[in-house]
C-alpha cells in the first residue's frame, strides 16, 4: 500500500506541468473561477494522467509526453513565425498558377517517435510542404518548391523547429 502511494506521488510530481495545463482547460470550459471548480479540475486532471499512464498506454511512453511548458511556448511561437513566412512565400504561386510538385525522401536526426510525429505535423502545417509517409526517421515529403537535384534534400524540413526538438531530446535521454 505504501509503495503504491509513493509511485502515485512520483507520477503526480513528474507530470505536474501536464496537470496544470489540463486544469486550465477545465477552468476555461467552466467559465468561472471558484475554489470548487479549481479543486475538481485538479482532481480530474490527476485522475486523467494517472489512468492514462496505468491503463490506456500499452508501451512505455511515460517520459516522452512530458514536454515542458517553456519548450512548448518557444516551439509554438517559432511555429507561428514559420507558418506566416511560408504562407507569404506561397502567394505568388497561387496568383501565377504554376506548381512544380515533387515527392522528396529525407531523414531527420530525431529518434523519439513522438517528437518525429510532432515534427511531421509541423511540416504539414507550414504551407508548401505536406508529409506523405513516415517510416522510422525517414519522411516522405510532398514539396512545392523543391531543392534541386544536387542540393541537400533536408532543405524542406524547417531546421529551426528541428533544433528545438533536438535540444529537448538530449535532456530526455538522461531521464528515460
Amino acid at each position, binding site marked *: 500500500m505504501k509503495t503504491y502511494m509513493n509511485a502515485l506521488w512520483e507520477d503526480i510530481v513528474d507530470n505536474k506541468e501536464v496537470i496544470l495545463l489540463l486544469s486550465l*482547460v477545465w477552468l*476555461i*470550459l467552466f*467559465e*468561472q473561477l471558484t475554489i470548487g471548480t479549481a479543486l475538481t479540475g485538479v482532481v480530474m486532471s490527476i485522475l486523467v494522467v494517472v489512468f492514462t499512464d496505468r491503463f490506456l498506454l500499452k508501451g512505455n511512453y511515460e517520459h516522452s509526453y512530458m514536454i515542458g511548458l517553456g519548450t512548448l511556448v518557444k516551439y509554438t511561437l517559432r511555429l*507561428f513565425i514559420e*507558418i*506566416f513566412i*511560408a*504562407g507569404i512565400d*506561397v*502567394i505568388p*504561386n*497561387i496568383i501565377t*498558377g504554376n*506548381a512544380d*510538385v*515533387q*515527392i*522528396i*525522401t529525407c531523414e531527420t536526426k530525431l529518434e523519439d517517435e513522438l517528437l518525429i510525429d510532432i515534427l*511531421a*505535423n*509541423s511540416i*504539414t*502545417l*507550414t*504551407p*508548401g*510542404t*505536406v*508529409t*506523405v*509517409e513516415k517510416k522510422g526517421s525517414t519522411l516522405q515529403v*510532398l*514539396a*512545392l518548391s523543391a531543392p534541386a*537535384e544536387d542540393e541537400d534534400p533536408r532543405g524542406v524540413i524547417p531546421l529551426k523547429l528541428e533544433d528545438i526538438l533536438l535540444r529537448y531530446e538530449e535532456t530526455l535521454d538522461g531521464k528515460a
Partner: protein
Amino acid sequence: MTQALEWIANIVIVIGLIFMALGVFGVFRFRDYYSRILVTAKVDTVGFITVMFGLIIRHGFDFFTGKIVLVLALYIITNPIATHAITRSAHLSGYRIKKER
C-alpha cells in the same frame, strides 16, 4: 487606446480574410490534386490562424479569449492529421505525379 487596439484587430481580421479568399481562389486555379492540397488548404489554415489572432487581440484577457485559444489549439492539432490522412490515402491508392525521388 482601446480604439487603436480595435482598429489593429480589425486590420488583422481583414488580412486573415484575404488569406482565406486566396485559398478558395487557389482551389479553382490548379488542375491536379497534389498542387491543390499543397497550396490551397494550407493557405486556408494561415487565414484561420490570422482571424483567430484578430479576435484574441480585440477581446483582451477573459474567458471568451480562453475559449478561442482552445478552438485554435484543437484546430492546430487536428488539421495536419486530417490533411495527412487524405494525402496518404491518395498516395496509397495510386494517385501519382511524374517526378519522384
